[in-house]
């Protein structure tokens, strides 16, 4: 056994002159192994994993919920607008330059009708008459209802619908007949139309011949009691000036027509004309409250941040607790990089779990809200992808420092902890 010891003659054992073996090369771990090893740490502590993932999930759910609800509302509004039509324009007199109420010229309807892209034109004219349930109601209690003169083609022009009775026609518009908007009917306690149903209008009884359905696009109509143009002029002292002109135009020309409608309606004083697009007004009114959404998004962001801190905390504790596991893995041949990858993968999995849970929760919240509102649920894919992406960034940031600490731990020190 002379070779078990130093060659005493030369002082140099013979194997020291052998060529050194090739440098050992660390093997790469496959992605499946990376995920499995990252997940192994989570599987051992399910309760802690659940709680720290919950923090992330709440943040993501809040954000997905806000985006989902606002998207669903917008989608719903767009659908309703498409059904109502976005090609309706209204023209009404503004203020004259001396501050008084301006008039639309009586010729304005004909002028507007001459625009080639205009499909239909009709009008309402405000009267000073009042409407009451009966002749005993004191004059002061008119309940904010308006009496207007309506053209017989108004119903078709604005696309309104009747819930009962008929619209004014050439005959009924000469007689004391009235069609009530939904709010007006409710105020006056009228539930159906018919020859025996009458309201006190101006200074005499008018027969209620029709009831209008609530009009989403033109909610002002709901408070109107509409009578024929002729009877208004004869019985109610109506001056014959239209106060609202409604026109449907070709869908592709809405913008162009809207721009020149004022000048067409009142060529002398185009500035005294107000032109509006009711669908825009409706869209603006129903647009989701940006301040509230912003606030909720901010809250979601804060809870996401808190969730991220929770994940970082969990990871720091995990690394402290698992020093001997780290030591063992180093002894089995794990490189520092592989230890770092393991804990980073663990943090990413943990927050991805929270992210997926949060997306599902957010979709659930959106479905609940949408079905309560009778809307269909729309959650944009970008929001879901963004939510998951955000959690991965958070997981990466939260896991970075703990993973670095785990990797830097010297193997002997790690093994010494029991």
């Amino acid at each position: 056994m002379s070779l078990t010891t130093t060659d005493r003659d030369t002082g140099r054992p013979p194997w020291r002159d052998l060529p050194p073996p090739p440098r050992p090369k660390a093997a790469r771990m496959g992605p499946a192994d990376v995920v499995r090893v990252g997940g192994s740490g989570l599987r051992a502590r399910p309760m802690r994993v659940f709680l720290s993932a919950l923090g992330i999930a709440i943040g993501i759910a809040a954000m997905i919920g806000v985006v989902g609800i606002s998207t669903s509302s917008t989608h719903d509004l767009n659908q309703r607008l498409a059904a109502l039509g976005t090609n309706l324009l209204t023209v009404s007199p503004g203020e004259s330059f001396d501050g008084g109420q301006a008039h639309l010229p009586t010729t304005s309807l004909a002028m507007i009708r001459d625009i080639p892209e205009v499909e239909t034109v009709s009008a309402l004219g405000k009267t000073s008459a009042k409407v009451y349930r009966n002749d005993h109601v004191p004059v002061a209690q008119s309940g904010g209802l308006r009496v207007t003169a309506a053209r017989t083609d108004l119903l078709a022009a604005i696309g309104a619908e009747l819930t009962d009775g008929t619209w004014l026609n050439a005959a009924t518009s000469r007689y004391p007949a009235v069609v009530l908007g939904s709010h007006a009917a409710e105020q006056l306690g009228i539930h159906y139309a018919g020859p025996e149903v009458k309201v006190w209008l101006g200074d005499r009884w008018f027969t209620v011949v029709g009831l209008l359905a609530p009009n989403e696009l033109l909610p002002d109509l709901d408070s109107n009691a509409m009578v024929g143009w002729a009877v208004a002029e004869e019985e109610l002292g109506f001056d014959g000036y239209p106060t609202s002109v409604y026109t449907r135009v070709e869908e592709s020309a809405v913008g162009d027509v809207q721009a020149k409608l004022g000048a067409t309606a009142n060529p002398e004083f185009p500035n005294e004309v107000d032109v509006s697009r009711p669908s825009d007004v409706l869209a603006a009114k129903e647009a989701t409250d940006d301040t509230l959404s912003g606030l909720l998004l901010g809250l979601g962001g804060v809870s996401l941040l808190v969730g991220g801190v929770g994940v970082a905390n969990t990871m720091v504790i995990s690394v402290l607790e698992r020093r001997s596991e780290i030591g063992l893995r180093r002894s089995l041949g794990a490189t520092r990089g592989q230890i770092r990858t393991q804990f980073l993968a663990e943090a990413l999995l943990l927050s991805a779990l929270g992210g997926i849970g949060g997306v599902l929760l957010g979709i659930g919240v959106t479905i609940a809200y949408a079905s309560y509102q009778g809307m269909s649920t729309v959650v944009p894919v970008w929001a879901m992808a963004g939510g998951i992406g955000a959690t991965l960034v958070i997981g990466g940031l939260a896991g970075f420092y703990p993973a670095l600490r785990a990797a830097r731990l010297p193997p002997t020190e790690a093994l010494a902890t029991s």
Partner: protein
Amino acid sequence: MTASSHPVVDLAGVSKSYGDLTALRSADLVVHRGELLAVVGPSGSGKSTMLNIMGTLDRPTAGKVRIAGHDIDELRDRDLSALRAATIGFVFQQFHLARGVPALDSVADGLLYSGRGRAERRELAERALRRVGLGRRLYHEPHQLSGGEKQRVAIARAVLGDPPLLLADEPTGALDSRSGAVVMELLHELHEAGTTVVVITHDRDIAASLPREVRLKDGRIEYDSALGDAPAGELVAAEGGLR
């Protein structure tokens, strides 16, 4: 054995200091392929320190370390990891088995960093568990195993890739004498199958039963039976007073 093969362990003047404390003092030790040796010594004498250096878990403060022909000074940390993955198996006093993980998976993790596929790792793990007599405990979790069985799982994990060098730091330290004997029996079998085995032990009988014995005291190699530096009788007499 010829000069055409590198020894598995070649320590030359290796020292390790922690601040003022010198845990290992210019140790010279050569372990050849196929040896089975015991490292003994009182607590704090530097046994674990020396084993960790042999296992490339730590670098010495001074001296030359060659493991299977590799000069440790010339290897980066990741090369040392690769060397451990391919060349060295470790067995510790604490078994280091993860809670809730079946034996088969624990053992298969022994080759996790070797670059071999999962199916092959599990196949080798099953074979290794049969080899240590635990063919019927493949899916047992640590809490369902006795101390001796846990240590056998740990041994299976250390040797499933057939590393040329097995380092065991008091593998019987946490076991009763019967389980300890089974574990030692296993190490003998591995040695007979060609593995080089270095065992740290407190047990004088175990040490005496192995082909080679290295004694440490205060960080120095005081006796190496392969060199016959000091007569065994003298040392036994000297340590007799400590009993």
